[in-house]
């Protein structure tokens, strides 16, 4: 039976890894593991995170620059994964030839046909929207929507048609209450059910 010995170099390697892990834990703990908006056609969140190499090829390849590496506020498990941020730009998945899917070396981003892309769903935050809150005549989100997913009600206030909305982010990007927009893209399934109804309109109106 040969004797098994731990080498000094191996001990050093173990120490270096341990120190790195501790440092990473100290820097990254406390992030919230919320689902993030992903590039169009991305696998579902858990599968996407387990495939993604964080290599930044999709971020580099984007036509509009709407992707960014997720910061540590989203938790260690999602650090540097690509996050679609409509605040940066809208997603032009019908124009770019799916550059992000093309760039991904590990197949974490699929290419569903254009009409099946659902990055997320937009919802109006009525307490911030000047049409809802102040009765002003603003429908810029409706004008920018390429999918006719925003409808004006009888008093000229925007409502999102979740059936048509693809989550491209044009509305959020253009809403001039930016950088704190009154219409926001939520991850699929997370948008408030009746389009902003979760906000207590009357209470907010009374407060201002």
């Amino acid at each position, binding site marked *: 039976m040969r*004797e098994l010995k731990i080498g000094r170099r191996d001990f050093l*390697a173990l120490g270096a890894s341990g120190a790195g892990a501790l440092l990473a834990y100290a820097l990254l703990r406390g992030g919230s593991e919320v689902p993030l908006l992903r590039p169009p056609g991305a696998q579902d969140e858990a599968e996407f995170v387990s495939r993604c190499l964080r290599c930044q090829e999709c971020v580099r390849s984007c036509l509009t620059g709407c992707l960014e590496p997720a910061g540590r506020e989203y938790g260690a498990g999602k650090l540097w994964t690509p996050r679609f941020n409509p605040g940066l730009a809208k997603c032009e998945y019908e124009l770019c030839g799916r550059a992000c899917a093309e760039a991904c070396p590990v*197949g974490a981003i699929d290419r569903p046909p254009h009409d099946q892309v659902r990055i997320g769903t937009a919802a109006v935050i009525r307490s911030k929207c000047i049409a809802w809150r102040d009765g002003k005549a603003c429908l810029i989100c409706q004008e920018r929507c390429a999918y006719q997913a925003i409808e004006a009600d009888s008093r000229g206030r925007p409502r999102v048609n979740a059936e048509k909305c693809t989550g491209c982010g044009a509305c959020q990007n253009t809403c001039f209450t930016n950088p704190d927009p009154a219409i926001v893209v939520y991850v699929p399934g997370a948008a408030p059910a009746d389009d902003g109804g979760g906000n207590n309109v009357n209470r907010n109106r009374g407060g201002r």
Partner: protein
Amino acid sequence: MRKRKRGAVHWVRRGVQAAFLVGFILMAWAASYPPSASLPENLFLRVDPLAGVAAAMRSGLWLYLLPAWIILGLTLVSGRFFCGWICPLGTVLEMIPSLGRRRNKKLSQLRPRDLSGRVIGEGATRLRFKYLFLGVLLLLLALGVNLVWIFDPLVIANRAVSFLLAGSVPFIFIALIVLAGLVGPRFWCQEMCPLGAGLSLACMAGSRLPAGVSPLSLVKDQEICTHCGACARACPFGITEVADSGKRGRLAIADCALCGECVYACPERGALSLRVMGRRVLGSKERLEEVRGPEEMAACGN
């Protein structure tokens, strides 16, 4: 030892490394919109067998990742040429001036030691952290937890280029540079890198293949070698197996990156040679006339 004169193999390898490094940076830079029709911009990430295994296990893109399997196959018959000649992260780390360079030591001082400081000699096996580490990574991968993105050298390098172009800080890359400066330029490659560990395993699996079928191999003539240790001092990976190995013909050392520095450093004519498909492309001491006798050669080494 002060400045050593460098052999042609050193500059040839430096040239190849620089070409791959520049190519890597250009590919990462060119990955911006629009996607190139002719240039596979993510090719460097697809030649990586570790990322390839991680990706193919979940996505089934075995054919798309063909470059990775080619590298793995070449490593099986050659060894870790990828680390010594191609890997962009290895190239950068090798250029880092380090406190850990050990040029003047004797062979006996260069051999790996255990925790109490004794040389790990015959009859003992060194427990290699990097193989355990690779095993843990692959196990986690099978369980659906992908940590390859933290430790894969090509991913680290690609992200570093991307982050630097975007003006943010590539933390892991900087940590590895600090490690190289403190401990040794190739310490990461030699003792930690999980891709390197995987390639080492592939090299071991093919270690019985003869030099004739190997695209790049290091061959030693046991009759000529005097075990002086010059090869160990010259090795950028700090390995002593070239001097210590009792094997005939193709050495196939798991940690060897086939850089050829030892061949140039070897004072014995014909003791070491670098071969392509069994044909000698570089032999030790071939340029110098035999002015010194073997005793003198042995004395000057150790």
